[in-house]
C-alpha cells in the first residue's frame, strides 16, 4: 500500500485512540482533508525541484510504534549534552520517556504536547497558537493530522529560562521502518528568554522517517535561540518544518547543524509581525556518501525597520547533494529593511552536487537587501602554507574547513554546545586537532 493511502486509512483509528478537545479534533480532520487532496510533494513543485521524496516514501513505515521501555540512560547518554545542566524532554519512538526526561512546571513550562493538548489549563495557549503559525502545506497538514506528542514549551512574560531545554527524539529500531511525526510548540512571552537544543537520533540502522513541525511564537522583546543537531544514521530521513512568528523588537535565531542522515530537508520560515525585529538563521552542512541536505528558508518582512541574517555554509564530499533555497520576501510596507543572505559551498568530490537558489522578492524601495552565493574549493595557497609548517594534509584541510564554518560556529551562544559541535565536526572529518577551537 502506498504510504499516503496507509496514512489516510490509519487516521480514523488514530483519531479514536486519542482524547482531546473538539477544536483540536476539528483542526486534525481539516488537516487530513488537506493532505488527502495535496499528497506528498513531488519534484514538479518548484520548492521540491531538487529534492525527491520518492526513495524514502517507498518504505513500509509503521505509523503506530509500540511503547519501548528497554532503553537505559547509558544507551543514550552520549547524545545528551551532559556538561550542561538542562531541562530534558526525551521521546522514544515518538513516546515520552519519563525516566530519561527532566521536565518542569516551575516558572516555565517545559513539558509535553500531549498534556498541553488535553489539559484545560493550557487550552487558551493551544487555542491561540497551535497550528496558527505553520502554513498549511501538505507535510505540515500531515503532521497536524497526526499531532499527539512533542515538546511544549511555554515561557511566561518577563521570565528567563534558567537552563537550556533539550528535546531529544530517539528511535529504537524495534520496527523495521518507522515514521514519526513530533509536533512542538514554543511560546515565549514578552521579554522572556529561552535556549533550546533539538536532536533526532536513531539507535539502529533501521529506516526512520521523521516529519517534524515546530512552531515558535516570540512575543515583544523576546529572545529565542534554537539549535538543531542533525547527525543521524544513514537510513534516517528527516523533514523538519520550523516556523517562527516574531513580534516587535524580538530576536530569534535558528542554527542548523546537518552532518548526517539519508535525506534531510529543513523548511525554516520566519514571519516578522512587528518593527525592529532581528531574525537570524545559520547553518553548517558537512555531508558525504549519498547524503542529501536541503535547506529551504524564507524570511517574510512584513513590517518596517527589521533585519534578517542568513548564513549557510556547506562542505560536500562523495556523491552527496546539497540544496539551498533561500528566499527573502519584502512587502511594500516593510521599508528600511536590511536583509542579508549568504550561501558558501565547498565541493570536495567530483561527484558531489550543489544546487543553490538564493531568491529576493522585493516590493519596497527603501531597503538594503543583498545575497551572495559562492561555490569553490579550499585555497591551495593556504593549504601549502599549513603544510609547509608541518601540519599534515588531512589536519590542514580540517583547519581550513573549521575556518570556513567559523562564522556560524562562533555565533552559538552555549559554549558547551559549541564545543560539542566542534567535536562532531572533528569526528566527521576524522581528525583530532589536539586543541579546542
Amino acid at each position, binding site marked *: 500500500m502506498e504510504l499516503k493511502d496507509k496514512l489516510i486509512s490509519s487516521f480514523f483509528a488514530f483519531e479514536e485512540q486519542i482524547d482531546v478537545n473538539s477544536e483540536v479534533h476539528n483542526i486534525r480532520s481539516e488537516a487530513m482533508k488537506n493532505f488527502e487532496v495535496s499528497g506528498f510533494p513531488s519534484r514538479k513543485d518548484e520548492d521540491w525541484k531538487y529534492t525527491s521524496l520518492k526513495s524514502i516514501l517507498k518504505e513500509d513505515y509503521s505509523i503506530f510504534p509500540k511503547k519501548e521501555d528497554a532503553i537505559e540512560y547509558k544507551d543514550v547518554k552520549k547524545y545528551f549534552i551532559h556538561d550542561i545542566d538542562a531541562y530534558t524532554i526525551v521521546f522514544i519512538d515518538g513516546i515520552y520517556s519519563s525516566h530519561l526526561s527532566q521536565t518542569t512546571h516551575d516558572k516555565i513550562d517545559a513539558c509535553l504536547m500531549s498534556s498541553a493538548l488535553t489539559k484545560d489549563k493550557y487550552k487558551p495557549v493551544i487555542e491561540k497558537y497551535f497550528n496558527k503559525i505553520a502554513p498549511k502545506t501538505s507535510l505540515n497538514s500531515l503532521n497536524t493530522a497526526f499531532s499527539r506528542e512533542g515538546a511544549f514549551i511555554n515561557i511566561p512574560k518577563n521570565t528567563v529560562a534558567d537552563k537550556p531545554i533539550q528535546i531529544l527524539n530517539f528511535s529504537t529500531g524495534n520496527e523495521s521502518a518507522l515514521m514519526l511525526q513530533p509536533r512542538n510548540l514554543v511560546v515565549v512571552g514578552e521579554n522572556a528568554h529561552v535556549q533550546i537544543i533539538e536532536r533526532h537520533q536513531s539507535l539502529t540502522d533501521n529506516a526512520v522517517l521523521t516529519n517534524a513541525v515546530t512552531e515558535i511564537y516570540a512575543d515583544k522583546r523576546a529572545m529565542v535561540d534554537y539549535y538543531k543537531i542533525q547527525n543521524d544514521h544513514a537510513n534516517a530521513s528527516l523533514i523538519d518544518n520550523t516556523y517562527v512568528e516574531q513580534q516587535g523588537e524580538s530576536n530569534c535565531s535558528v542554527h542548523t547543524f546537518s552532518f548526517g542522515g539519508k535525506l534531510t530537508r529543513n523548511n525554516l520560515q520566519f514571519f516578522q509581525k512587528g518593527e525592529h525585529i532581528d531574525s537570524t538563521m545559520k547553518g553548517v552542512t558537512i555531508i558525504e556518501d549519498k547524503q542529501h541536505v536541503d535547506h529551504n528558508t524564507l524570511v517574510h518582512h512584513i513590517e518596517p525597520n527589521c533585519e534578517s541574517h542568513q548564513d549557510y555554509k556547506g562542505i560536500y564530499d562523495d556523491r552527496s547533494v546539497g540544496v539551498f533555497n533561500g528566499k527573502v520576501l519584502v512587502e511594500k510596507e516593510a521599508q528600511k529593511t536590511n536583509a542579508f543572505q549568504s550561501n558558501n559551498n565547498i*565541493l570536495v568530490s567530483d561527484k558531489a552536487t550543489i544546487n543553490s537558489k538564493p531568491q*529576493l522578492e522585493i516590493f519596497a524601495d527603501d531597503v538594503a537587501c543583498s545575497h551572495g552565493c559562492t561555490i569553490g574549493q579550499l585555497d591551495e595557497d593556504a593549504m601549502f602554507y599549513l603544510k609547509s609548517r608541518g601540519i599534515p594534509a588531512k589536519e590542514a584541510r580540517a583547519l581550513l574547513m573549521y575556518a570556513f564554518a567559523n562564522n556560524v560556529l562562533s555565533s552559538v551562544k552555549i559554549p558547551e554546545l559549541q564545543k560539542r559541535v566542534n567535536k562532531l565536526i572533528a569526528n566527521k572529518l576524522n581528525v583530532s586537532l589536539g586543541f579546542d577551537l
Partner: protein
Amino acid sequence: MNKFTEDDLKKELETKEYEYGFYTDIESETFPVGLNEDIVRAISKKKEEPEWMTEWRLEAFRIWSEMEEPDWANVNYPKPDFQNISYYSAPNKKPKYDSLDEVDPELLDTFKKLGISLDEQKKLAGVAVDVVMDSVSVTTTFKKTLAEKGIIFCSISEAIKEHPELVKKYIGSVVPQKDNFYAALNSAVFSDGSFCYIPKGVRCPMELSTYFRINQAGTGQFERTLVVADEDSYVSYLEGCTAPMRDENQLHAAVVELIALDDAEIKYSTVQNWFPGNKDGKGGVFNFVTKRGLCEKNAKISWTQVETGSAVTWKYPSCILKGDHSVGEFYSIAVTNNFQQADTGTKMIHLGKNTKSTIISKGISAGKSQNSYRGLVQINGRAENARNFSQCDSLLMGNECGAHTFPYIEAKNKTAKIEHEATTSKIGEDQIFYCNQRGIDTEKAIALIVNGFSKEVLNKLPMEFAVEAQKLLEISLEGSVG
C-alpha cells in the same frame, strides 16, 4: 527656485506617452486569423520554400499543438488567443530594391521618425541594415561589401532558397522545435528574419544590424535569426526594435540561434523598445523570445541587451559552453515602468573544460512594474575548472514596484568556482543631496546615478548603439531618472 520633486517626476513619467506611437499606412497582405496545418503550409508556400522546410514547419506545428503555454514566469497577463492572430503580414508592394530611392517613401518616412536614417547610417556608422518591417525583409544594404568577404547576410527566407545546405544544417540545432512553447510556435510560423554566415577566418568589417518593428494591427511577429560564425571568425550583430502604439496586446515570439564554431566570436547586442503599453497598463507588446548560442572550442558568445519596452518580457539569452575554453557573457539592463513586467535573465550551461561565464544584470523598476531576474548557472560533471561570476543589481523607484531575483546555481564539479551576488536598493538620498549641493538638479542627479548604475552594461554596447540605448533609457524613465 522651481523645485522639481520626486512627485513631479512621477507625474511626468506617468503622462509620458510612447514617443514612437505612429502607424504607417502601407497596404499589407494579411492572412486570415487562426492557425492550422493549412496556414503553416500557406506560409511556407507564400515564401516559396522547399519541401524540407515545409515539413520542418509542420513538425514544429504538431509539437506545438500538444504543448501547453508555460506559466512559471513571474508575470501576469491575459493569455493570448493563438487562434485569433494573423500569422502572416507582408508589405504589399514588394519589389526587391537595389537602392534606397526605390523604397516606398512612406516607409522611409517611418524610419526617419524612428531616427534610423538609412543613408545616415550607411555613411556615418558603416552599418549594414537588414530592415524587417512586418516580417518581410525590405532592404538590405552593404550586401555587396559583405559579399566580397564571403559573408552572407540576408533574410532567412532568401537563405532558405539560396543557401539551403547551411540553413538545413544549423536551423533548430541550438533551439530545437520542441524546446519550448513559443520556440515551437515560431518554428511553425516564422515569417522572416535574418541569416548571417561568417566564413572561416573572416572578421566582419562592420556591425551587422537589423531593425524590427511590428506595424500591422493584430499580427504576430515571429522572426527567426540564425547567425553562424565559422572557425576563427568574428561578428558583431545588432538588433533593435521599436513598435507603434496599439491598444490590443501584440505577440512577439522570436527565436535567435547563434553558433560559434572553434575560435569564433559572436557579439549580439539588442535594444528592445517595443511599445510597453500606456500608463494604465493598456496595450503593449508581449515579448516571448528564445535566444540561445552554442560555443564550440575556444569560442565566445556575448549577449548584451537593453530592455526598455514591451508590456510583458520573457527572455533568457543563453550560452551553451560546449567546447573547452569557451566563454559566455551576458550583460543586461532591464527597465520597467508603469505596468510593465519583465522576467529576464540568462542560462550558462558549462559543459566543456575551463569554460568561463560572466553575468551582469541591472534591473530598474519604476511605477507599478515588476522586474525579475531569473538565471541558471549549471556546471556539469565534466566541466573542469569552470568559472562563473554573476552580479544582479536592482534599483527600485517608488514603493509600488517590485524587484525579484531567482538565480539557480547547480554545480556538479568540485573544481567549479562560482560567485553570485545580488543587491537591491534605491537611489540614496545622500547621493542626490551631494549632487544638489554641487548645483546639479535632482532630475539630472538621478540621470547621473542611473547612468552610473548601468554603466557596466552600456559600456559593452557598440558605440552606435550605446548612444541609442542611452536615449532609450531616457525615454522610458524620463522625468524620473533622466
